[in-house]
């Protein structure tokens, strides 16, 4: 057993209002420099939608992540080792700037400096790459925002195209059935990252203490294979400095005990962040599981932080008491392991992503009835006297379960249904407690079906609806300072300067 610690996050999608505050907080801190304007380390997508970069989930196009070969071995979908060296002069699977968008600003100065005339002066769009005026803006971040039902965006969602039949696709375009929800995405800080494996130089690495995946800016040589290797398209190429960059999970903030900026600014408080302990020895085996076993295999990697053997393993690897304690109080562990509510995004990419999502119930159960938008009804056929979530809610879901399964369980419909059964059971139980209009036998049946106890329902309800900041953010300061003077031999703070992270003192600008 090789126990390591990981900072992990849960997104409760029912609470996401799609305000993009997280994206803006991240952009203002990390990606407002030249060459990074087009990067959104954190972005919020509308699903169904094409996403950013366009159709990033289509791995036949972008070749991200891993696949199993005929003998069950794991290989990068992008290329083999020799392929990396022969494709180095031209990467056939690299997204170009137009797959993201050309970043721009506006010529605001003209509003002040324009000569007097008959018309109002305008602020024309100016490209942040070339500095030229842009006559038409054809794409931008969140260009598909709220475009559920759109022929251009929603209809071309790779999950829709892959998982739904022609008639199901057609039915989602009916106005009454138009549906969408939001999907915030940052780097997943995977256990089996495709970017690390694809980097020819070995410039990308995962930190043992907290699992954060970083690109050494000093070692990156712009071979740009990481951009293709990441199936989530969360490594980006800085065209100005000639280096790849990605989400750093705000490690300078984490190390001083602050949460990441995207987390801290979240208006809907949808995010939970905490430590989990996992067994690194099992990663490869888990990543080789068949598609419908991937979710369970990944859950099995996350170990019980109360198990003495696990704690001893953590100690062996130098993981401090504070981290173990945090892992024991981790909201992520509760959502992912104890309750089984949170699922990884696209586990079939086999990178073992370490961010988890509680799938949204509201867009699934909401419907238009008698001209009224009814958020608590089952779809159209629910009897008029039957209010609130009920035993049939999931079967009558407005979004086909195949679609949600394609996002969160590698196509395993039973698995995603089980999660929805849990979400419905919590609603039904809490409603029976507080409103009292649920049939007792229905509630019991819902609990039985969801493998939940009333106590668990209350815990889930409390952590979902009433959590304090301290309950959502359970990460100790990362104690970097202890590495330099503590019980362990002192480490020269500069000895790793050239080896990792953003630790350089010259301006990160192009000089040659």
């Amino acid at each position: 057993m090789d126990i390591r610690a990981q900072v992990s996050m849960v997104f409760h999608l029912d609470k996401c209002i799609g305000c993009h505050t997280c994206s803006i907080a991240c952009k203002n801190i990390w990606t407002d420099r030249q060459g990074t304007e087009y990067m959104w380390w954190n972005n919020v997508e509308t699903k169904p939608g094409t996403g950013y970069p366009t159709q990033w989930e289509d791995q036949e196009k972008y070749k991200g992540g891993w696949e199993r070969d005929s003998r069950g071995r794991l290989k990068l979908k992008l290329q083999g080792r020799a392929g990396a060296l022969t494709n180095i002069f031209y990467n056939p699977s690299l997204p170009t700037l137009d797959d993201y968008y050309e970043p721009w600003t506006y010529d605001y100065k003209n509003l002040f400096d324009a000569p007097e005339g008959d018309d109002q002066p305008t602020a024309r769009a100016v490209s942040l790459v070339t500095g030229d005026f842009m006559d038409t803006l054809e794409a931008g971040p969140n260009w598909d925002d709220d475009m559920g039902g759109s022929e251009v965006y929603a209809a071309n969602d790779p999950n829709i195209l892959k998982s739904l039949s022609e008639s199901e696709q057609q039915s989602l375009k009916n106005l009454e059935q138009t549906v969408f929800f939001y999907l915030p995405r940052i780097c997943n800080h995977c256990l089996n990252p495709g970017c690390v494996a694809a980097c020819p130089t070995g410039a990308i690495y995962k930190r043992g203490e907290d699992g954060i995946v970083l690109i050494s800016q000093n070692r990156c040589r712009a071979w740009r294979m990481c951009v293709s290797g990441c199936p989530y398209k969360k490594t980006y190429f800085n065209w100005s400095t000639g280096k790849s960059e990605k989400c750093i999970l705000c490690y300078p903030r984490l190390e001083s005990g602050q949460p990441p900026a995207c987390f801290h600014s979240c208006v809907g408080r949808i995010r939970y962040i905490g430590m989990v302990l996992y067994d690194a020895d099992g990663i490869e085996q888990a990543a080789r599981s068949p598609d419908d076993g991937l979710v369970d295999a990944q859950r099995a990697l996350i170990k019980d932080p109360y198990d003495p053997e696990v704690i001893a393993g953590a100690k062996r690897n130098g993981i401090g008491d504070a981290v173990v304690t945090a892992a024991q109080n981790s909201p992520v562990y509760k959502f992912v392991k104890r309750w089984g509510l949170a699922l990884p995004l696209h586990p079939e990419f086999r990178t073992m992503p370490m961010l988890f999502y509680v799938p949204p119930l509201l867009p699934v159960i909401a419907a238009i009835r008698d001209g009224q938008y009814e958020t608590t009804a089952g779809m159209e056929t629910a009897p008029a006297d039957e209010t609130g979530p009920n035993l049939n809610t999931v079967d009558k879901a407005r979004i086909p379960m195949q679609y949600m399964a394609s996002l969160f369980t590698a196509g395993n419909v039973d698995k995603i249904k089980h999660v929805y059964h849990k979400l419905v059971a919590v609603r039904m139980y809490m409603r029976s407690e507080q409103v009292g209009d649920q049939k007792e036998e229905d509630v019991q049946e819902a609990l039985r079906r969801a493998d939940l106890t009333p106590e668990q329902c209350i815990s889930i309800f409390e952590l979902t609806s009433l959590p304090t900041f301290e309950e959502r953010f359970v990460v100790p300061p990362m104690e970097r300072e202890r590495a330099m003077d503590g019980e362990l031999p002192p480490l020269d703070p500069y000895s790793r300067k050239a080896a990792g992270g953003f630790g350089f003192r010259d301006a990160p600008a192009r000089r040659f």
Partner: protein
Amino acid sequence: MSDVIFVGFPYVAVALAVLVGIYRYRSDTFSYSSFSSQLLENQKLFWGSALWHYAVVLILLAHFIAFLLPPLWGGIIGGPLRFPLEALGLILSLVGFVALGWLMMRRFSTRRIYVVTTRMDWVVVGLLLFQMLFGFVISLSYRWGGEWFVSSTAPWLWSLVTFNPKPEYVTAFPFLIQLHFFTGFLLIALFPFSRLVHLVAFPIGYLWRPYQRVIWNRAPRPGPGFRTS
């Protein structure tokens, strides 16, 4: 004069390449990058970049073999492979020249690429273009160049390596060939001051490194990683 061009200058060029190259790597590792522009322009790059790189790698390989193992090269060039090799060299230099010209046009005509091109980029790409042209014309008009390499160029280079310089080996060469030598060493001299440093960054280690890399701030045990193929 020939001492300056064929003795002093090569020494200066190689010294610059090695010393400044190492100094730059140690003091400014960040600047070591191939500065790929593929993100900004994808279509024209394919033919230009792939053809150029493969052509120039093969051409350089032939030069290095001829330099390091003159007897071997002399044997090959004196045998039945002479004509195919000459034809291949001619084709490669033409391909390299055209592909590089194509890349230069791409830099000039694509706005996104133009704005990320530095002055040194233009100098290097211009010199390379001339160098390819010289090589092409030489291989076309001096068909015995391959043998000259064995009998004169290689001894001259080895005389430099052994610090017993004998420029007289090459002073009688036609002007174009001498110019080819000069431009070659000029490019070596510019190596540490340009993006050419990406040559030494070629990631051959990818063939055997473990796929995953884990770094501990303090190492509790050797960083594990696994191979999957």
